């Protein structure tokens, strides 16, 4: 990643300067009588890449654009600007029909397994649906054996017991397993997991995470793991990118980033995640809670400066670019 804007085909996924601006739509009257509402720059020019088989953790707090990024990668929403290259194909210029074969190779596990499974369908038809959609199996028998196979793989056993159940007859963990089966039955090469355990009981989280990790190794899956939990990102991913207010502020190899964080936001994240004894030592790293509406920040300043514990120099006037500070370690902060 010598030049973040360079297009290289040895990456499986290349995201280049991706932007998504949500216009706050309002009628004539609202526009005439209320204060101007600025468009929301949910994802504001992010660039990253993922190699085949590699896991990238995207971390950040609520509303920073993590889920928007995932939706953009799947083209569930259309980007405002930028490119998404998947295996050399530009997803941003494709229409729905051209996207279908690509969607088979990129799959997503959604955050909430209570929402992402159709409540009116049985486990077998839920897992079989992707196979039907992509016409991957010849006939019912073939499909059923494929479904049973994947159910064993993801640990919904004995399969006969679960095949005819409806989502409301499953526990949260079992639902998420079914959702994972839906994604993996297509044998994708790239898996996006959007906080796959945040809606689950703590007791079943480890099981789901181990399952995902095992499947990643087994199927040589590249993955984008979206989370707000540093510990999870550390456990699941080789590299980590920290997202703040639609911008990547720091990215690097897992150990390098965690042991040598540079951006004050990353440092703050690590401070809150560390153990209680460390907590007091790292207290000066803490940042204040958000007291300004970050949507309202003008362009051309460091997004983080209202919360930054350090002196403001250029921060209010110039937006910092990502600068390489070490091997594969990039930071966007004026202080570096």
């Amino acid at each position: 990643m010598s030049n973040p804007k360079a297009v290289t085909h040895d990456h499986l996924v290349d995201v280049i300067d991706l932007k998504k601006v949500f216009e706050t739509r309002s009628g004539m009257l609202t526009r005439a009588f209320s204060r101007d509402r600025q468009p929301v720059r949910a994802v504001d020019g992010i660039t990253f890449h993922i190699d085949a088989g590699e896991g990238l953790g995207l971390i950040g707090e609520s509303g920073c654009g993590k889920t928007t990024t995932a939706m953009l990668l799947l083209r569930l929403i259309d980007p405002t600007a930028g490119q998404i290259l998947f295996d050399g194909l530009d997803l941003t210029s494709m229409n729905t029909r051209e996207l279908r074969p690509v969607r088979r190779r990129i799959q997503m596990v959604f955050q909430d397994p209570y929402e992402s499974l159709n409540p009116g369908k049985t486990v077998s038809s839920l897992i079989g649906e992707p196979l039907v959609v992509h016409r991957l199996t010849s006939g019912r028998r073939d499909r059923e054996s494929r479904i049973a196979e994947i159910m064993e793989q993801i640990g919904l056993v004995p399969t006969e017991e679960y095949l005819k159940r409806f989502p409301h007859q499953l526990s949260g963990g079992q639902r998420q397993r079914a959702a994972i089966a839906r994604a993996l039955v297509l044998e994708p090469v790239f898996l996006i997991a959007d906080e796959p355990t945040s809606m689950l009981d703590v007791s079943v989280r480890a099981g789901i995470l181990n399952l995902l990790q095992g499947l990643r190794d087994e199927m040589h899956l590249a993955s984008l793991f979206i989370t707000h939990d540093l510990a999870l990102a550390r456990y699941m991913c080789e590299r980590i990118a920290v997202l703040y207010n639609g911008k990547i502020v720091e990215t690097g190899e897992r150990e390098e980033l965690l042991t040598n964080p540079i951006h004050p936001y990353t440092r703050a994240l690590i401070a809150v995640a560390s153990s209680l004894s460390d907590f007091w030592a790292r207290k000066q790293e803490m940042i204040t809670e958000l007291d300004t509406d970050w949507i309202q920040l003008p362009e051309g300043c460091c997004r983080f400066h209202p919360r930054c514990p350090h002196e403001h120099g250029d921060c209010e006037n110039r937006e910092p670019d990502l600068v390489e500070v070490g091997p594969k370690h990039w930071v966007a902060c004026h202080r570096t």
Partner: protein
Amino acid sequence: MSTSRLREILKTFRRNPLGVVGVSILCAFLFVTVFADVISPYDPYERVGKPFEKPSTTHLLGTNDIGQDLLSEMIHGARISLGLGFVAATIAMTIGTVVGVVAGYAGGIVDTILMRMVDIVLVIPFLPLMILLAALLGPSFWNLVLVLSVIIWARPARVIRAQVLSLKERGHVVAARSTGGTVAHILFHHVIPAVLPLSLAQLILATRTTILIEASLSFLGLGDPISKSWGTILYYAQARSAFLTGAWLWWILPPGLLISAAVLGFAFTGYALEETVNPRLRGRR
């Protein structure tokens, strides 16, 4: 629709007293409609007595102006009134569901055009329009059906569109899109099965409206004068001055009550069903 969901709906429905009353009324009418030939004492199209007979043991509700048995007329009238209402409502609901699903899912310009059409239909003062259409097309069963369905489809289309709008943002629909499902797949597997219960509730409420409108039109003489619907009976009663002669008690009151009962039956069932499939409406009474 899956069986588990259906069972759940039935269970909730049974706990709703309004719905139970409504369904009982409808069942009674269904029975009368199906076994009209067996129940009615005479053939309603035959002259079986003297004209203008008062109620007696041979003719429980008397006879009309040409000596046909009124009770038999009313029993057979259920067939035409309810049948016509149901057929018209079914056609209207089919149109309404298709328009609602397409407008809601497609969005954008398609949605705008369809919804403006709905607006137009909704703001038309419908009784004058229907009188005009009925007069223009001439009185017949199918013309009445046509006129009724043209008017009725708009409101359910709105309701269904709203449901589809919220449905298409639901997690499992988004998940199906991300899997690579085609629009047809998503509509037939995820959207339409989910709106069908609502369509059914709307169908029953629409039937209530069509029955009422059919009665009004027939009463005004704009229905099919040959077929014996409840509205037509009222039309002839009015034309033969039943109100002035005291015959209203057996010539006008019974069909009026039958219309009210049928409308109530459909309304109760419809409301109860709507509440069952849309829990947010529960407890609004």
